[in-house]
């Protein structure tokens, strides 16, 4: 049988595995102590390994696979809250030392990096040439490119640029049998063979370990300005936002925020915030004239707002920094991501707010309005009563998203809660295909066992 824990060696001989790992990498590249930092959902591994090359990483993975060990690839740990509780976890396989820029040709707007490079470092390198990777997931600046890809993490700028799947041109992957393969290519237009990079984006390292990635970069916008407006209620805020999206303005992001999120973001911005005010944040980016025109139109659309604030230059960027920071849940919180039609976003946010009120669990939500993605943070009460309420909230939130033909992912939750739910929601009609793909790529269930959809 596939992927049942019984498939793994009954008793893992960690000593023997470590010996073979040490024959692949140096003594200093393996760690058996101080592993709490590599815990996933409270489970610490037996060891962590830090290969220096893709080939070493692949060899370590094969050794672990052969020994029947459970491996969780590890970037910076930024997205480890995502996923079900691992069924087993013996080895953390770190990409921290695979952190080079391998090829960057500014004139082509393409860049190839190793997976362990922090996204922020890649951005700094691109900025030297007036370019950027339009991928701005919330969270730590240490988040690695590989981790962002595995988690398919995204942020506000997906409004204009899409997600990792739209930006990744090619990648190199280490498979559990120790083989390295490439998919896609290094040019911006390529339809040779199956589009394998799509398979690995968002796969939470359940099929292979991404060791290298090629992206299309974008020119940094010349001018950036932000308009924040607060409205007396959600409906006018959403209407102004939808109208802005419909005008085809030069927007990089468009966020609808519930009262709690609005208050947290705008605290200190000097806007008068009436009780229960909803917020809309629009980030215009592009040429000088396009941004000026977009701001003008936005100001008109937001005339129903009780207050508006226009931020230029640095203050604009720091507002978005702050917004992304607020999307990042704290460890004890429940974080959900609901995907619905853009037009259903206000309805969903309303029903989540009602649900929060009924369960007496404070919520803060922000939506990438035009793409229909709603991120919520739920502040849970301490103790077991908190857990019960949280489990109810998680299932009712999923029901709310499903009622609107959408989906829900619990992006973070206390491990005790995760034991009771599938964070990816109930399996969809394509689950059998998903299961067979896992079986083909990771027949022994070595990689991130139990963490993916349907506890694969």
């Amino acid at each position: 049988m596939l992927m049942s824990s019984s498939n793994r060696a009954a008793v893992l001989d960690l000593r023997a595995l470590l010996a073979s790992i040490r024959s692949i990498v140096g003594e200093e590249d393996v760690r058996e102590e101080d592993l709490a930092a590599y815990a996933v959902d409270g489970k610490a591994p037996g060891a962590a390994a830090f290969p220096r090359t893709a080939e070493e990483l692949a060899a370590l993975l094969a050794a672990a696979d052969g020994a029947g060990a459970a491996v969780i690839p590890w970037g910076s740990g930024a997205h480890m809250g995502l996923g079900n509780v691992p069924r087993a976890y013996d080895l953390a396989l770190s990409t921290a030392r695979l952190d080079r820029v391998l090829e960057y040709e500014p004139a082509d707007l393409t860049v190839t990096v190793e997976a362990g490079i922090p996204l922020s470092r890649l951005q700094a390198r691109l900025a030297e040439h007036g370019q950027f990777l339009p991928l701005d997931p919330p969270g730590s600046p240490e988040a690695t490119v590989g981790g962002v890809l595995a988690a398919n993490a995204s942020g506000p700028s997906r409004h204009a640029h899409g997600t990792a799947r739209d930006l990744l041109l090619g990648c190199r992957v280490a498979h559990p049998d120790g083989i390295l393969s490439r998919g896609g290519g290094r040019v911006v237009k390529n339809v040779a063979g199956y589009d394998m990079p799509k398979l690995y984006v968002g796969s939470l390292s359940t099929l292979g370990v991404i060791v290298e990635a090629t992206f299309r970069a974008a020119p940094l916008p010349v001018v950036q300005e932000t308009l924040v407006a607060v409205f007396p209620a959600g409906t006018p805020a959403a209407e102004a936002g939808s109208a802005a999206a419909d005008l085809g303005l030069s927007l990089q992001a468009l966020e609808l925020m519930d009262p709690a999120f609005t208050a947290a973001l705008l605290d200190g911005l000097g806007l008068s915030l009436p009780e229960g005010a909803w917020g809309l944040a629009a980030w215009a980016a592009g040429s000088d004239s396009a941004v000026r025109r977009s701001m003008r139109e936005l100001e008109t659309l937001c005339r129903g707002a009780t207050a508006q604030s226009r931020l230029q230059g640095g203050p604009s960027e720091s507002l978005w920094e702050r917004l992304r920071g607020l999307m990042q849940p704290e460890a004890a919180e429940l974080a959900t991501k609901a995907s619905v039609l853009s037009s259903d976003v206000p309805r969903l946010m309303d029903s989540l707010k009602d649900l929060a009120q009924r369960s007496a669990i404070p919520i803060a939500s922000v939506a990438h309005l035009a793409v229909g993605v709603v991120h919520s943070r739920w502040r849970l009460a301490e103790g077991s009563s908190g857990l019960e309420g949280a489990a109810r909230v998680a299932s009712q939130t999923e029901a709310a998203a499903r009622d609107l033909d959408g989906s829900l992912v619990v992006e973070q939750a206390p491990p005790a809660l995760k034991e009771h739910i599938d964070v990816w929601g109930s399996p969809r009609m394509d689950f059998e295909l998903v299961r067979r793909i896992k079986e083909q790529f990771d027949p022994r269930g070595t990689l991130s066992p139990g963490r993916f959809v349907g506890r694969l």
Partner: protein
Amino acid sequence: MATITKQVIRELEAVVGRRHVLHHPEDLLVFEYDATIERALPQAVVFPDTAEEVSAVVKVAGRYGLPVIPRGAGTGLSGGAIAVVGGVVVALTRMKRILEVDAPNRLAVVEPGLVNLELSKAVAPLGLYYAPDPSSQRACTIGGNVAENAGGPHCLASGVTTNHVLGLEVVLANGDVLWVGGKTRDVPGYDLTGLLVGSEGTLAIVTKVVVRLMRLPEATRTLLAIFNELDEASAVASSIIAHGIVPAALEMIDREVIQAVEPALHVGYPLDADAVLLIELEGLREAVVEESEAVLNICREMGAREVRLAEEAAERERLWAGRKGSISALGRLAPNYYVLDGTVPRSKLPQVLRQVNEVGRRYGFRIANVFHAGDGNLHPNILFDEREPGVVERVLDAGREIMRLCVEAGGTITGEHGIGMEKRAFMPWIFSEADIAAMSRLKAAFRVGELFNPSKLFPTAEGEAHQRHVQQATRTLGSDAYV
């Protein structure tokens, strides 16, 4: 090749109705080819009307071990819709309904047989359009676009088919009908939609497509930049991109193509120019003005002898008519032409174009280039006369050398036409055995065996495929080919 019996025909007729099954050889002839030089006769062609009928056809074919080859309009340029080893062609042209248009959410649900341009026409009154625009968009179908992950001139800024497909209803090899993806984003699980787009009909048959629609731009400006030197034109193309300007379209048309197009269509391309660039800017009025001025300056600084600006729709359409009619016009230069498709890094364009023309000189062929310069996607057309003995083999040799140049420049063997039958032998140039093995695993997960579109996409030994090409190259591209 499994033979098709009367019994099989009866069963297929029971599924789709008698008048929707073709099986007499004379009826099958038009389904023998697509827009490439390959051809092979299927044993039957069926025209299902629903996913359920597709499913039932797949089950009948599966029971008798007959390959199933999905087909749209047959405009493909890599042999993707050809029944290489015979079998049942599933022509999806009856399934051409627009099932739903959701203007507020800018999406539509359509059937695979819908002609690409029909979708944009249907949603234009709502101020929307479907962005991927293969040059065959008047004929090609959305389903075929999904199978090949088709591109087009306006994919430079807005992306190719895969960036515009949100979900698919598909029929699997066992006849199961299911949805992958949907109308919403970030659907949990592997990105099966992304995998199926571009899978060339080898994994599943698409029966419904959820597409993203885009807002029609507020303003559009088209520039025609005229150059005395090809090198200058390709340098300008890469320089525009390097300057951080991403036009909606950035197309190059070289001297040979101008010689064919201008006398035929009188669109105003100067006959003594070495190359022209067709550059389109779209978006907010203000941005379009600003960007077109920047582009104008780059062109002038880098040696354009003249730049014409078209703002009025009629003027713009005239400039585009030359581009869109270019392949058909090639017939004025030679009885036959063979269109190639490869991508190179944009900064390598000048170098690779020089090398392409050098290959032409060496083989004694004229090569006409008309292509998507903005994303480095080349389309050299080798001009020849098939009556010349042994010429097809030399054409294919020259084509192979040009593909090789693309690979050596760090590029790839197909930017938008697909591997199909045509380029299977070149796959090992860009993919290792391990890379192909990963693709095989994916295919294995779909449990499709050799049922769906066999002998496509995966590599063959080079000699074998080449031999096939030569034997089968009895037909060359006609006026129905577009790039």
